[in-house]
């Protein structure tokens, strides 16, 4: 035990560390100044938060990439019409509600004029509950949970909600003439469950038969037991409203078990092919459909420009999450620009309110469609139904 540090040495070291930490935090505390100066300087601070480590980091990182790209372009073009630049405060919350609240408060303390976040549902709701106390403008790229905008008028999202997508896919299934439907979803995720429940409700309303609803737990990799049950019901189509990594496994395993029918999905499917990895083979995906707001197959000029810019910046293909992050940043910058142009908001408090009003009234032409808000924090925008043909994605229809 010769390598053990004695307790006395330890006290010395830890004592010194503790004094150091408390001193530095005291100094940090003294640095705080009047909050109104936050809007008078040459730069405006905006918070950007999400999970950049942990098991949902892929979504956070994608949103971060998209958002950062827009902010960079915005600053490069000279910033706001009054010449102010946006400086970002980027913080990781590991997909954890506790950390998300800490991160939010840290941002609020540095007098940010708006926060772009959060990415996944539970932390987003935790942040929304905190942000309403400050009336902080909050734009989330990807928080689909219905509750996110429930707490106040300050919260907006760039994506559409779970119930909307579920209803949409049920309408699509009815239009396609599918009679017998099954679903398989992650019961541990509120996004998956939200889409599934809305789909089932709408399908029943339309007189379609839901033969079985199978579920699995978060982290599962083997879906064969549930899929065997589904195949036994001989469905026309199976809804798998999960994230692409699970969907890929579900489709592959279903094909191994001999299922040849259609799979329907929601925007969690975006990125199932075409990114760094293909999560299911083109052959297995043939004839499947999902809804999304962004797809690289979209020939729209602004979309193609975004794809080109993104590739130049990160040397990778943008995903749906990247596009939503980009649009969320666009919504924020547009609002801030309008507030600057009007020049009426003189205090920090008024400024935040002005940003909220500007978002609520504005219309933004983003890469995920034209986004506007009609009295709520839910966007009104068109939806693309994507199909697969010969291993490639194409736009089946716009709804």
């Amino acid at each position, binding site marked *: 035990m010769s390598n053990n540090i004695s307790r006395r040495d330890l006290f010395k070291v830890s004592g010194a560390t503790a004094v150091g930490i408390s001193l530095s935090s005291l100094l940090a505390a003294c640095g705080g100044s009047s909050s109104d100066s936050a809007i008078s300087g040459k730069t405006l601070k905006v918070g950007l938060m999400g999970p950049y480590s942990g098991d949902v980091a892929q979504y956070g990182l994608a949103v971060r990439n998209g958002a950062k790209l827009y902010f960079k372009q915005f600053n490069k073009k000279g910033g706001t019409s009054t010449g102010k630049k946006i400086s970002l405060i980027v913080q990781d919350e590991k997909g954890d509600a506790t950390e998300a609240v800490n991160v939010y408060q840290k941002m609020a303390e540095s007098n940010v004029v708006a926060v772009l976040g959060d990415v996944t549902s539970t932390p987003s709701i935790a942040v929304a509950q905190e942000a309403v106390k400050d009336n902080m403008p909050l734009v989330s790229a990807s928080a689909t949970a219905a509750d996110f905008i429930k707490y106040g008028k300050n919260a907006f999202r760039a994506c559409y909600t779970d119930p909307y997508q579920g209803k949409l896919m049920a309408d699509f299934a009815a239009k396609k003439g599918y009679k017998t439907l099954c679903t398989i979803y992650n019961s541990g995720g509120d996004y998956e469950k939200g889409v599934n429940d809305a789909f089932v409700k709408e399908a029943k309303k339309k007189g379609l038969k839901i033969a079985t609803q199978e579920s699995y737990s978060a982290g599962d*990799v083997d879906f064969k037991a549930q899929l065997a049950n589904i195949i036994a019901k001989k469905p026309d189509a199976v809804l798998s409203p999960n994230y692409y*990594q699970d969907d890929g496994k579900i489709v592959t395993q279903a094909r191994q078990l001999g299922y040849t029918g259609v799979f329907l999905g929601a925007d969690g499917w975006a990125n199932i092919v075409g990114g760094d990895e293909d999560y299911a083979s083109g052959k297995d995906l043939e004839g499947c459909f999902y809804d999304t707001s962004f797809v690289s197959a979209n020939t729209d000029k602004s979309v193609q420009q975004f794809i080109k810019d993104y590739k130049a910046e990160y040397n990778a293909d943008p995903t749906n999450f990247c596009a939503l992050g980009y649009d969320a940043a666009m919504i924020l910058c547009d609002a801030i620009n309008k507030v600057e142009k009007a020049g009426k908001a003189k205090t920090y408090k008024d400024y935040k309110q002005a940003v909220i009003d500007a978002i609520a009234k504005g219309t933004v032409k983003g890469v995920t469609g034209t986004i506007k808000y009609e009295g709520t924090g839910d966007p009104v925008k068109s939806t693309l139904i994507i199909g697969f043909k010969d291993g490639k994605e194409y736009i089946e229809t716009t709804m």
Partner: protein
Amino acid sequence: MTFLTQLLNGLQLGSIYALVALGYTMVYGIILLLNFAHGDIIMVGAYISWIVMAKLGMSPALAVVLSVAGCTLLGVLIDKVAYAPLRNAPRLSILITAIGVSYFLENGAQLVFGADAKVVPAFISTSTIKVGGVSLSLNAIITIIVTAVCTVVLQLLVQKTKLGKAMRAVSEDMGAARLMGINVNTTISFTFALGSALAGIGAVLYSMAYSQATPTMGIMLGTKAFVAAVLGGIGSIPGAVIGGLLVGFAEVFVSALGLSVWKDAVVFLLLIIVLVVKPTGILGRTMNEKV
């Protein structure tokens, strides 16, 4: 027909759990350490397969060899760096070190490979064969056979060879084994190598069946296999296999009944019931406590 399919599903899942559980059991048997990093060794093995096949474009056979070799090396390295300095420390300290190693591997993998899943290419081209109207997945059959062979070889190794005898002696009483002239450190290293090689094989079988590698894939797999090892009686090789198959079947049949949300609860409830009835697991030995 559905029942037969489900049976095969259970057998395949159970075989993978059994193979991983064997690794837990061997390490626990010899130094009484719950090696939390075991699941993460499998994760590293899956990434090696991915690098060899998807990035370097080399043959699946090479991927198998390199995955197993890589896992073996990693296991021995972890033992030497993190566990060996703590041989005489309180057991909890080694446990915390194991957790630290597990955190390190997970977060390290995420830094290097990113959080998004990587798709491991198929090891074999044909995926299903038809036998009398039932489509059998070739993956499942290979998994089951490989696990059976590994178990038999391992059992022979432990029971019939000199090294196996040394392993059993060290697990019985480390001090006495040292007095009898057994090189305890070599024996422990060998056990780690063996357990990690099994993890490597497990990684290949896992990638074959589920074709995705993520930094956090080891957590769930490790926990389930760990439950399987305890269920069968930790320290016992046949016990690990029985435990693995039990957990596999339990999961598949609960899911097949449409109760998959309660699957994890059922597995752990099974564990609690077995342990309360037989406190050392199904095939575990009862150890007399010394005053």
